[in-house]
Structures are given as C-alpha cells and as structure tokens.
C-alpha cells in the first residue's frame, strides 16, 4: 500500500522536474502523462502514414521530453485502427491517432465504420498532399500536357486506363474530374499506390493517381510526368503543374488527397486535449522538426487544432455530398 502511493508521487516529482526543463506549459494536467503515449496508425509499418507517425513521435519526444510510441493497427482499410482510436481505447489521453482524411470520412459515410465523425477530434494538422495524376513519359501520351490528354480522351472514350485505389481519394477525385470534363476513362482498381505506379512504369495502364512523395523519384528521373493536382493551390515541389482551378474543374479545396492529422477520442478531458494540442503545435512550429520531416520527404503544412477541425468538417461534408449524389445517380 505504501509502495503504491509512493511510486506515483515519485513519478510526479520527476515529471514536474522534467516538464519544467523542457516545456514551460502552464496548463499541464496533474499526473499526466505517467506512461508512454501511443500513436495509433491504421496502416502496416513502412508506409507513408507510418513514416509520418514515427517522425512525429521522435520530434515530439525531442521537444516535450515525453515518450511516444507508434502502434500499428492495420486492417479493414483503416476501419480497425480508427475504431480502436474512436471507441475501443480508453479515453484517458494515452491514445492518439495519426489519421488520414478523406479516407476516414469515406469509411464512415460509405463503408459502415462503427463510429461517427464526432467520436474523433482533430488536435493538430500535419500536412495535406493532393492527388497527382501522372503519365509515363515513354508512352503514346507521354508528351502531352493535361489538356491535350483530355482532348485525346474525348476523341477515344474509354481508351485511357487510369490506375487508382478503389473507393479512395484517388478514385473519387478521378471520377469528379472525368465527370466535369465530360470524358470517359477506364478506371482500373489497384490495392495500393505502389502497384499502380509499377503498372504505369510498365505501361500496363496509361495514367495513375498517386501522392507526390510516393512518386517523386520517378518524376525527378523523368520516368513519369505530373499532369495535374487535385487542389486549388499549386504544390511548391511541382511548380508549373496545373491545379484544378487552372484547368477549370470545381473540386472542394484541400479535400481530395491525404490530409494527415493527429486525432484523439473526443471524450478525453478538455485539459489533456488542450495540453496535447499545444505540444503538437509547438513541435510542428520548430525549425528542426520541419527539417526532419523534409528528410523523409514530407513537407509540413501545420494546422492548429481549430484550423484542422474546420478542414475536417469541410472534408466530411464534401464526402457526404459526393456519396449522396453518387447513390442518387445509381438509383436512377
């Protein structure tokens, strides 16, 4: 009995000392954290989200002096991991999630994920990556720019094959694009961005949708050509590549792509949420953090908890709208 009261007390003293040495945050919750904080990733180790989480964990440890652990819970196209974050893990502030949107919104709206949008609350945005459409520079359409390809697709309906991941941002952005431009693509479903990129390199398909960091090397070596991005603001890494605004397509801004943010169970106490949001903001503002992310090929676009919440709400309504329309069209 004596022991059990002594240990937390000792912890607390150590913690207070630790906290004052690293971060002078006034609203630090009492006896928190008293063990490592987990960052849940709903993907297997090795992918883009996993890398983002691991880099964030290292940088958070550096800035805050606390311990962060990455916990992979893949399965069900992110539903397993995100359900764990939203429902199954105790709302005690020791489980954060690195969430990717609109993927998560799609699972809620269309795939019957057993939690709602408001079960997860964003407490800091890390980056947004738009969808990039690519062609193989050696193929028959390799020399064309975006508008020429659209013209070609109009003349040859259904001939151009576009590789996407079914029911994800790549798929939906491509469908919105094709619908508004009045062209018909043959959409080829792949299980992941890499297999589609390989099929494009081997000229088994004509176009592919992917994220910049997954294909940067192929663009730099001249094997692939970036044609357009699914956002209204140009990407600094891809100067001169037209945005949706440039080519006259109306698409919700900063939505169809990968918005990576840190989420937490909404039932966690406000005190802890604010504390963590503060810590994340502080970490992401740091110059060395930016460099560390750049080293793994991620350009930071930090958002505060409030900004990220707005983005999250917008993305959710854009996804709901898309599926409402798609289902209505399917019924006709």
């Amino acid at each position, binding site marked *: 009995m004596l022991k059990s009261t002594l240990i937390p007390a000792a912890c607390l003293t150590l913690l207070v000392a630790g906290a004052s040495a690293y971060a002078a945050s006034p609203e630090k919750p009492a006896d928190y954290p008293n063990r490592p904080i987990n960052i849940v990733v709903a993907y*297997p*180790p*090795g*992918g883009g989200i*996993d*890398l983002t989480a*691991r*880099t964030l964990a*290292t940088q958070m440890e550096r800035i805050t002096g606390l311990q962060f652990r990455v*916990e*992979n*819970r*893949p*399965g*069900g*196209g992110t*539903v*397993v991991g995100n*359900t764990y974050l939203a429902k199954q893990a105790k709302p005690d502030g020791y489980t954060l999630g690195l969430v990717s949107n609109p993927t998560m919104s799609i699972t809620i709206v*269309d*795939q*019957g*994920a*057993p939690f709602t949008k408001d079960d997860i609350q964003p407490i800091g945005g890390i980056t947004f990556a738009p969808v990039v459409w690519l062609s193989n520079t050696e193929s028959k359409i390799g020399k064309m720019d975006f508008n020429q390809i659209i013209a070609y697709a109009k003349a040859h309906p259904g001939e151009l*094959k576009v590789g996407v*991941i*079914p*029911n*994800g941002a790549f*798929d939906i952005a491509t469908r919105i694009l094709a619908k508004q431009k009045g062209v018909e693509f*043959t*959409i*080829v*479903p*792949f*299980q992941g961005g*890499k*297999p589609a*990129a*390989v*099929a494009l*390199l*081997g000229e*088994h*398909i004509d176009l592919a949708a992917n994220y910049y960091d997954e294909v*940067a*090397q*192929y663009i*730099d*070596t001249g*094997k692939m050509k970036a044609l357009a991005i699914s956002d209204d603001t140009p990407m600094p890494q891809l100067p001169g590549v037209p945005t949706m605004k440039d080519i006259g397509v109306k698409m919700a801004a900063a939505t169809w792509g990968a918005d990576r943010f840190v989420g937490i169970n909404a039932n966690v106490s406000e005190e802890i949420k604010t504390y963590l949001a503060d810590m994340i903001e502080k970490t992401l503002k740091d110059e060395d953090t930016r460099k560390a992310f750049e*080293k*793994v*090929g991620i350009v930071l676009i930090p958002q505060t908890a409030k900004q990220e919440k707005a983005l999250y709400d917008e993305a959710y309504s854009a996804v709901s709208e898309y599926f409402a329309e798609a289902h209505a069209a399917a019924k006709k």
Partner: protein
Amino acid sequence: MLEGFLNALTPTSLFVEMLGVVIGIIFGAIPGLTATLGIALFVPVTFLMTAEHGMIMLGGIYAGGIYGGSISAVLINVPGTPASIVTSWEGHALARQGKARFALGMSALASGTGGFISAIAVLFLTPVLSTLALRFGSAEYCSLLIFSLTIVIVMLETPMTSNLLSCCIGLMLVTIGLDPVEGTPRFTFGVIDLMSGFNLVAVLIGFFCMTQAVRLALDSLQKHTENLVDFSGETSLREMLGALGSRIVTHLRSTVIGIFLGILPALGPVETPFIAHAIERRFNRKGEDFGNGSVSGLIASEASISANVGGSLIPLISLGIPGSGAAAVFIGSLTLHGLQPGPLLFANSPEVIYTFFWGFLAVYIFVLLFGLIGARYCAFVLKIPQSVLATFIAIFSILGSYAINNSIFDVVVMFGATAFALWFQVLRFSILPVVMAVILGPLFEQQVVVLTKTQNSVFDILQRPIADCFLLASFLIIVFGVIGRMRKKGARIKALEGMEQIDDA
C-alpha cells in the same frame, strides 16, 4: 563498390552482422514469432545506428530468422516462420530417420549458398533484372498464379479432385473482406475485423504451429511417449558437401526460381518454397520420395527462400517497390534514415547501398557458419519435456499472431485456422491446396480484375509470350499428371486383380 566492401568488413559491421543473425535465429526458431515480425519490431532499434548498419542488422535478422525457422521445422516439425513450412516436411522426416544433424547442416548449406548467389546477383545484375518487375502485368501474374496452383493440385498424392476442391474452398474463403473492385465490404457479416479478410500469417501459424502444439499435448499425455528425434548421428562436412554437389542442378534451379519470384513484387518468401518444391518434384530425376525426407526437396526449399530474399532487394533498391511485407519494412527503415529507395538511390548514396549489399553477403556467411558449427547445440530443444514444448508453442503462437496487428481478432482467426487444419486432417484432405489458395488467392483476384479492365479480348492475352509460356506449362503439367495417375491406377488395379486370383486359387 570496393569502398562498400571494406565498410562491410569493419569490426562494427561484422558485429552488427553477427548480432542480427543471432537475434534472427532466436526469433525465427521460436514458433509463432516470424522473421517479418522480427524486423518490424527491431526497426526502432536501428535508429540508434547509421543507415547502413541498421539495414545490415535488419538483413541479418531476416536471413537469420528464416534459417532459425528451419531449426524448429527440422527438430520439432513446427515451422518457426511461414517460409519454413516446406522445410518442415523434408527436414523433419530426415530427422526422424536419425539424420537431424545432417538436415540442419544441409539447410544451412543450401540456404547460405542460395543467399550468397542471390546476393551476387543483386550486386551485379540489379539494373538488368529490375526491368523484369515492370514487364509483369496482370496477364503474366494471372498465368503465373494459375501455373503455381496447378502444379500443387497435380503434384500432391491425394486425389486430384479433392485437391481441386480444397483449392476452391481456400480461394472462396479469401474472398471475404473488402472486394478489390469497389472497395466495399464483402461477406463480412458486419464484423469490422473481417473487412481485411483473414490475416495470412495468423492463418499459417494456426495451420502449422498451433496444430503441432495440440498434437504434442496429446503425445505428452500418452503413456509411452516416443522421442521426437534422435540427435546422435554424426555428420561430416564432406558428406554434406557431397550431398549438395550431387544435387547442384537442383540447387541452381531453385536459386534461380527464388531470385525470379523475389524480383516479382507480389510474391515473397512464403509462397516461393512451395513453388520451387513442386517444380523440383516434377523435374527431379533422382527418384527421391518427396515430402518424406527428400534431400533434393530440402535443398529446393532452403535455396529458394534465401534466393528470394536477395531477389526481392532488386526491385526494392532500384525501383523502390517492396516485394513482401518484410521488404516494406526495409523501405520504411531506409526512408526514416533519410534515404528514399528508388531510381535515385544508387546515384545519391551508392556507399550505403554497396555497404549493405556486401554486408548482406557477409550475413549469409554467418548463417552458413552458424548452421555448420552452432546447430549441434540446438539439441537441447529435444531435451525439453513435451508438455513444456506444447505449452510454449501455444503461448508463442498466440503472442505471434497477436503482435502482427496488435489484434485479439487475429488470435481468434489463428484458432479457427487450427480447427480447420485438424478438421481437414481427420477428413484426410490435404491442407496444402488450401494453403496455396489462401496465400495466392487475394493476389489472383486482384490481377483477374485488372486483367478484365485492361485487356479487351482473349486474343490480347495470348499475344503476351511470358503469359503463354506459363499457360502452356500448366496445360502440359495437367496432361502429364493425368496420364501418370491413370497409369498408376491401372497398375494398382492389375495388382489387386492378381491378388484376388491368388485368393481364389
């Protein structure tokens, strides 16, 4: 390249190589803890090292893990890692014949040399071979998968119709999950954990590890418990080299198959030994009893696994494409060290890559050395009482299947797979067509979907020479398989009739 060679021989590098191999062997030898899990768990540890040492360590854990899997496969008939399933048939049968030490030595020798050859291929042929990964479109994958399934269905001794049925049952089971066309849940009955289907590693642990725990528990309750394996037989290096020398064609054939399947991004070390073993069974002219302690079969399995690991590094380094779950972890680890695998890696940081390549070569020498010198100390495993063995295989099977995705559901899947395997055994159905179908099924459906979307007619598919070769080979295997079986059946009926005549007389 020379600089890389010297870097791989510094004391630190040598230490990291050895450490990796030893950790890998321990991890691999424990049933349930797989080689892939081993490297995934050690990724954080590699951050403490330089990029090249981290990679060498992961390479060592992986190569060691796959060899370690063979140790438990040979000694207690439990594949320590899914890649050693085939090794357990041949190796354990050899061990039961009193050749445990020989089997352990042979698997180290075959695996070490196979890995060594593949590492040389990686060093010198990466630019040439990497284009092969790109030439494989959906038509080629579909035909290769049909070929692989055919060869297993035809080559097994159990009746071909029941093999075909088991294969279809396996293919049917893995359609549960998100469908590859629309990405919506299919046959999941509202269970979210079923949305990604059954986890393959959990299923394999259930099929091959947990079933063995149940069997050992049963054995330990018998009054007369027989010794698992007699470990007394001595084996000289000369004898092993002789056995390998006389099967050099087998070894090279399996190594080439291993490298080839490794280069293909979708086929990893789990499926490779099945295919290599089945091909060997078809083409081997030594008249060995495959599946019951054939040395050629053991060599085919071990050489192809190690060669596969080397082969999968080719697209990984040159194109940034992972060939398996393990390769994906390698890519993640490289990226976290600030190195992006892909076409620019050779140009930007050749020293890291060459150090890693040479280190990888050295890793296989350590595996070889351990297998030849250290394997005799593994005999202690056989002194453990069967009750303890059964208990620990059970706990590690559960922990291993839990740790893949940190999911209790995967443990339930593993139990289900155990029950399924035992059920099939009682039914006298072969589980292997199911295993192949479960491993290859998801890939097969994905490629069929891509095929139907990208090819307009059957004629288009027939214009692809690689695909045609595989289809033709599958057709010939079926024809010869059926003829061979009919002959055997004819002979058996004749023999039976002869016996009846004797009875009548």
